[in-house]
């Protein structure tokens, strides 16, 4: 955890420095006439200071040494990775494939993530959820879904 905490601190410091620099470009102004960068600068400066304090605290904290994979732990992180990858792909493919087709594939992946199911159960669940969600969101709640190049969905 210690290393992960240190990496996080470096992220905060980098973010703080970048925002401070961006705020200078935006113009800080004066207290009587604060510019667009006035508050972002103050906020980022404070964040940077706190991140440095936290980094020092974490670095000099006495505790057991990190072992490999301590941050990830004894967990199945691959499922999470699949979900994130599917969502990113879904966001990209939705306008091209349309709601029904894109959601079909998303649900297929998500339903099959946990345990092995018979293919027809998987298919029935996916089609059912896809269809019901389409009726609820599109027909009842009037959400305008993209059609995709199929011309439906």
């Amino acid at each position, binding site marked *: 955890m210690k290393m992960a905490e240190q990496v996080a601190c470096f992220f905060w410091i980098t973010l703080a420095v970048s925002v401070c620099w961006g705020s200078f470009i935006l113009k800080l102004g004066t207290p*009587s006439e604060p510019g667009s960068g006035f508050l972002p600068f103050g906020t*980022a400066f404070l*964040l940077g200071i*706190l991140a440095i304090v936290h980094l020092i*605290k974490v670095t000099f904290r006495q505790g057991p040494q990190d072992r490999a994979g301590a941050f990830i732990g004894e967990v199945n992180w691959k499922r999470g990775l699949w979900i994130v990858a599917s969502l990113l792909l*879904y*966001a990209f493919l939705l*306008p091209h494939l349309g709601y029904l087709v894109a959601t079909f594939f998303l649900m297929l992946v998500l339903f099959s993530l946990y345990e092995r199911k018979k293919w027809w159960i998987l298919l029935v669940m996916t089609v059912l959820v896809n269809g019901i969600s389409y009726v609820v*969101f599109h027909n009842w709640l009037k959400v305008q879904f993209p059609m995709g190049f199929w011309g439906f969905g």
Partner: protein
Amino acid sequence: MDLFSSILMGFQSALQPINLLYCFMGVLLGTLIGVLPGIGPVATISILLPITFKVTPIAAIIMLAGIYYGAQYGGSTTSILLNIPGEATTVITCLDGYQMAKQGRAGKALGIAAIGSFIAGTISLLGLTFLAVPFSEVALKFGAPEYFSLMILALVILAYLAHGSMLKAIMMALFGLLLTYVGTDNVTGSMRFTFGLVELSDGFDLVPMVMGLFGISEVLLNVEQTIRLDVLQAKIKNILPTLQDLAKSKGAILRGTIIGFFLGILPGAGPVISSFVSYSVEKRISKHPEKFGTGLIEGVAAPESANNASAQGAFIPLFTLGIPPNVTMAILFGALMIHGLQPGPLLVKEHPDFFWGVVTSMYIGNILLLFLNLPLIPLWVKVLKVPYPILFPLIVLFCVVGAFSLNNSPMDILVMTIFGVVGYLMRKLKYEGAPLVMAFVLGPLLELNLRRSLIVSDGSFAIFFTRPISAGILIIACLILSLSFLSKLRQKKPDVEEII
């Protein structure tokens, strides 16, 4: 308009069939997600927020509020039957509730939880009814410096009461503020931190952000392990507590209500802290403190009453001061803004039909919850058997459609996913999401009030210390900050280990 006429007007509005339907849907959903571990009111409200854009503001807020206080009722079911809290607010109920269930008294535990919740919720609503107008009249005297100081105080208290490191909580609040600066500057009209992307010119939307931070990140954490729920197999009987049980619990319910109500008003405290404090108080004043944790009915009545009282009390600062005291209220704050209503002292004056409609709907919601919780307990037990592998794809689908429907743009799905990963990493590294969202919601007002104050005072920060109310609020904030650095005093915060 006098109070009686206002309440009457509120009931007229709340009892309209459509509002009644949304109230029922809200409390039903609230109980459902309260029962289900792995999804809480924050995630649910975030997920359902876009759907409410299609209905009137009053129906939307009635439903979202129903989800919030309904979840406080439902959360006790899993605590009592599974020893797994359905919500963070019912963690402490596990201690005596599960022991009661193991002794064959699950029905009584569930019954007293529902009755205590109902009594506490109703008393707390009376407090909301009578205190809302005086509170908003005081708040009308506030100017920009007072509002700025009040928001600082809210963020400081929230950070102080954070479950983990206060330093991290403050960093999260600052990160939340930084996120609000993305987009068009409201004062000068110039673009800030948009990197030339047109999509960022309006800044980040609250909805995909909270959906990611709470909905998607919750799923990412839960799918890491295989959740198996072992529901107590014994038949649940004797749901109604005996007169003896009620006599034992009445003090606990009343004390829980008072503690919950006042801690609910306080920014940052909320139902979680209230339930811990009330349990701690009961244990301390009991003649047999050693028996707590072995199945005492007071150990269920007190925290369950406190978390409900707190949930209702939290609406006071939101509606009257425009300051959300916890993260759920922060999301409701966002929902009100999206619906074109500005939470704050003018809400009661300018939209009395809305305000009193929502308040009175909560009385109705409380009665509905009593009926939903007592006779339908066997049904909720069945709901617990829905396997997570079936549940989580549905949660993801709701998030996806909710995010997309905001602007009909896949960009929002992308933003939601990115914040989902951010939320996941934050939880892994023990950074809390609540200060981030609170700061994100309060950020634009905080900046506006600071800049207005500085312009009025010709650049002098002394304005915050020369005006008595503002100075008083900032002194309290400074005292809290100083206290937090005294580690001994910080340990006074109630936590599970201490109470057990």
